[in-house]
């Protein structure tokens, strides 16, 4: 299958309806692909019912669709099986689930190792756990370009470490984390590894078996699927060892006045009615993504990112946040402009039909490391093209003329 950005763009109804929109905020939310939209529409029109409860045919059809989505997610992640896939409301919900369930087994003196490059969703839940359980947080330092500095891992991942929780790729710098040494360090002390994959899954298939991690979290809305659905993948034995987080319908074995027993994973972690149609849409999106020509698509986005960075580099007063080497990063490009606030730049860019995000990107500890309050971020995916990059660069020049 050959790749064409224009053809790919045609698979995204919103973009097809707005041909003049230069959508470069994909790190916040990817546009919904038609495969997901069609799956959601079909499910809601033909198979809508609650799941794992009813015995009538419609309910069984809904069950089948929901469990098929679990299989589709498992296939995308190269997981051992669908029972390792827990549907959540998103990455944030997945990490909060783990912070509660895994955190139940931690005590004062235990340590959780994070990095200063984390999105708040992989930062704040662990601070809250620190308040609840008295665990200590250790923060991996960053190199000047925002990549994790793994040169002193043995100082941070000690015998007291129970969990290493890091991002797969920064939502600000695009820097891809070198997970292998982190996994090895965690294994050496018997700690688990959680990876926040919110920025990674939309850039190609993820192989959790090859990564060797224990937990992997991501969101549907960044992977061209509906909002309101996400995944916590966990190794079977790792999930089986955890207590539930939320209690309610669907997650029980048996409830009596005296006690309640838990359903096995993944249902143990899916109390209440799950996001059924959204999960069906996510499964369809991932199935569609799995069939795409990723080598060509990676070459396309890398070419665009290079063009963008080359164009930005000549703008006076512009500073990049993140590594310059595209082999170490995803096509997420953040930068500051001397004397121009990111929100003001974004406002001018909006006038050029360019949608980018400005601000701290829910990564204030990382912003503190860079010594800035915020940045402008352009995040590329395969439906972006030369016109998007050109419009961004032209808009920035206009912003500098008006505000600089």
């Amino acid at each position, binding site marked *: 299958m050959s790749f064409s950005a224009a053809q790919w763009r045609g698979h995204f109804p919103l973009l097809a309806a707005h041909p003049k929109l230069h959508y470069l905020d994909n790190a916040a939310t990817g546009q919904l692909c038609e495969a997901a939209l069609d799956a959601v529409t079909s499910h809601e029109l033909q198979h809508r019912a609650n799941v794992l409860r009813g015995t009538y045919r419609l309910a069984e059809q809904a069950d089948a669709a929901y469990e098929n989505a679990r299989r589709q997610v498992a296939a995308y992640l190269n997981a051992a099986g669908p029972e390792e896939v827990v549907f959540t409301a998103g990455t944030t919900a997945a990490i909060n689930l783990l912070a509660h369930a895994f955190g139940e087994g931690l005590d004062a003196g235990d340590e959780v190792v994070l990095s200063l490059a984390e999105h708040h969703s992989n930062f704040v839940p662990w601070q809250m756990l620190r308040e609840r359980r008295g665990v200590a947080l250790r923060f991996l330092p960053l190199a000047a370009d925002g990549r994790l500095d793994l040169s002193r891992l043995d100082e941070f991942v000690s015998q007291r470490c129970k969990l290493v929780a890091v991002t797969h790729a920064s939502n600000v710098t695009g820097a891809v984390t070198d997970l292998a040494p982190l996994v090895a360090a965690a294994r050496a002390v018997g700690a688990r590894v959680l990876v926040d994959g919110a920025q990674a899954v939309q850039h190609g298939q993820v192989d959790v078996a090859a990564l060797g991690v224990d937990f992997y979290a991501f969101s549907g809305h960044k992977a061209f699927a509906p909002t309101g659905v996400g995944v916590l993948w966990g190794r079977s034995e790792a999930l089986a060892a955890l207590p539930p987080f939320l209690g309610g319908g669907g997650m029980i074995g048996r409830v009596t006045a005296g006690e309640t027993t838990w359903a096995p994973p993944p249902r143990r972690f899916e109390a209440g009615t799950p996001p059924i149609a959204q999960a069906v849409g996510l499964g369809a999106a991932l199935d569609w993504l799995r069939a795409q020509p990723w080598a060509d698509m990676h070459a396309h986005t890398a070419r665009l990112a290079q063009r963008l960075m080359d164009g930005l580099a000549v703008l006076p007063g512009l500073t990049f946040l993140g590594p310059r080497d595209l082999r170490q990063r995803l096509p997420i490009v953040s930068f500051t402009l001397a004397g121009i*606030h*990111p*929100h*003001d730049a974004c*406002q*001018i860019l*909006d*006038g050029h039909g360019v949608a980018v995000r*400005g*601000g*701290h990107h829910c990564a*204030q500890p990382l*912003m503190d490391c860079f010594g800035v*309050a*915020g940045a402008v971020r352009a995040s590329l995916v395969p439906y972006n093209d030369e016109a998007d990059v050109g419009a961004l660069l032209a808009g920035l020049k206009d912003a500098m003329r*008006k*505000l600089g």
Partner: protein
Amino acid sequence: MSADDLYQQDILDLANSADGAGRLGAPDGAAQGDSPLCGDRVRMEVRLDGGHIVALAHETKGCLLCRAAAAAIGRRAVGLDAARVAALRGEVAELFAGQAAAVPSWPELQCFEPVRAHRSRHGCVLLPFDVLAAAMDNANRA
């Protein structure tokens, strides 16, 4: 409503005037506020006499709109009491809600009218007013 309407010369001039920027030696009250959206930070310091502002200074790390609002406060706030500050904050909110008085109390407030069309930016203008109110509250309680 385009970005050009937002970034008119009078709002640029107001922001760049940075009126009131700095610190007071010994404020009666101070407060700091952050925008959860963008990380902007405003610090306001006030000295009061009988509940009225006699001196004010602010440190504003923010966008043009936030800096312009802080500068308007720096230019006009001396003499106000807490109730008047609340009323001015209300005037700005009404401006954004399309219910503004025909003539704003401060002529500078009129330049924020185009912000009305940009809901995500309302907080940029309101933040300095909220921080000033908190600073006065701290001073009155001290």
